[in-house]
């Protein structure tokens, strides 16, 4: 069925009603409903992705609002998962959300990922990304990596069986060494999250060329995008052969 809501998408070259139908039938899991998650969730919902899973065990804090634009001041103290679902229902009631109000981990990864076709990484630590990477590789689910720090952002699309995996990029587990939370340019999560959401939509509809096998880096201060090639590590414990 055509819809006025999506007409500016449907008229895009290569999109059409078939693309919109593909979105309606798609199931995407967004892991983390913070800064990146705010951007990704809103664009996926507005685009008409039929089922969106939201994973987050935290509550909204006042210090989140500088960059987590999914939430309002009245949401402080609410479950992020619940507040996000309410906001998305208002943005697009045609979209179904599934709330997973918990922290994503190796223990619950397989169960949460069940029934989703694509995952989006909007987490805030390397450990959870390792868990997401391993679970997605086992299930053959593509996932879109995004990370930010201060004025720097990174994005890549990992496709099991086709590209390097996150463990090839970060072979050795080590978190950022800062003792205090790092600052982040708030608009940076919009830049990186917007690229992630675009990658999801492209993958679902089969548009263009995914950001697969490449790491896209955005440095906001010099206003420079740089792209690097990512090769599979034959010795990788997750995807190596």
């Amino acid at each position, binding site marked *: 069925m055509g819809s006025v809501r999506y007409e500016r998408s449907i008229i895009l070259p290569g999109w059409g009603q078939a693309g919109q139908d593909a979105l309606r039938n798609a199931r995407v899991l967004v892991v983390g409903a913070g800064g990146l998650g705010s951007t990704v969730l809103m664009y996926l919902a507005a685009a008409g992705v039929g089922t969106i899973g939201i994973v987050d065990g935290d509550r909204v804090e006042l210090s989140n609002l500088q960059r987590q634009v999914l939430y309002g001041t009245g949401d402080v103290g609410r479950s992020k998962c619940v507040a996000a679902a309410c906001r998305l229902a208002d943005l697009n009631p045609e979209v179904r959300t599934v709330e997973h109000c918990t922290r994503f981990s190796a223990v619950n990864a397989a169960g949460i990922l069940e029934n989703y076709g694509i995952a989006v990484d909007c987490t805030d630590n390397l450990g959870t990304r390792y868990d997401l990477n391993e679970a997605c590789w086992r299930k053959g689910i593509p996932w879109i990596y995004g*990370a930010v720090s201060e004025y720097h952002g990174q994005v890549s699309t990992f496709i099991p069986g086709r590209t390097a995996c996150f463990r090839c990029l970060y072979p050795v587990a080590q978190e950022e060494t800062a003792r205090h939370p790092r600052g982040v340019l708030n608009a940076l999560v919009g830049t990186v999250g917007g690229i992630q959401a675009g990658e999801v939509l492209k993958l679902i509809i089969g548009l263009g060329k995914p950001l697969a096998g490449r790491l896209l880096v955005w440095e906001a201060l010099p206003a420079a995008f740089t792209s690097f090639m*990512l090769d599979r590590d034959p010795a990788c414990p997750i995807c190596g052969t």
Partner: protein
Amino acid sequence: MRVELRVFASLQKYRPDLAGGEPLDLEVPEGSTVEDVLAGIGVPVSEVKIVMVNGQQATLKWRLRDGDRVGAFPPVAGG
């Protein structure tokens, strides 16, 4: 030999002169590794988690050649 070096994200605190995005052109001894070059300009190699040489992933032990372009990243984990 000459190499071109960029450091990204929080590594720029060790070399604020590189935060503008311009690469640092360096004259280094033949046989230098990425690790040697980074240590030589005051970037702690323990904080470097991703190395790129000529646009492709490499390691700290990578032996450089004349004209190589090097990028170094710390862990980037925020979301």
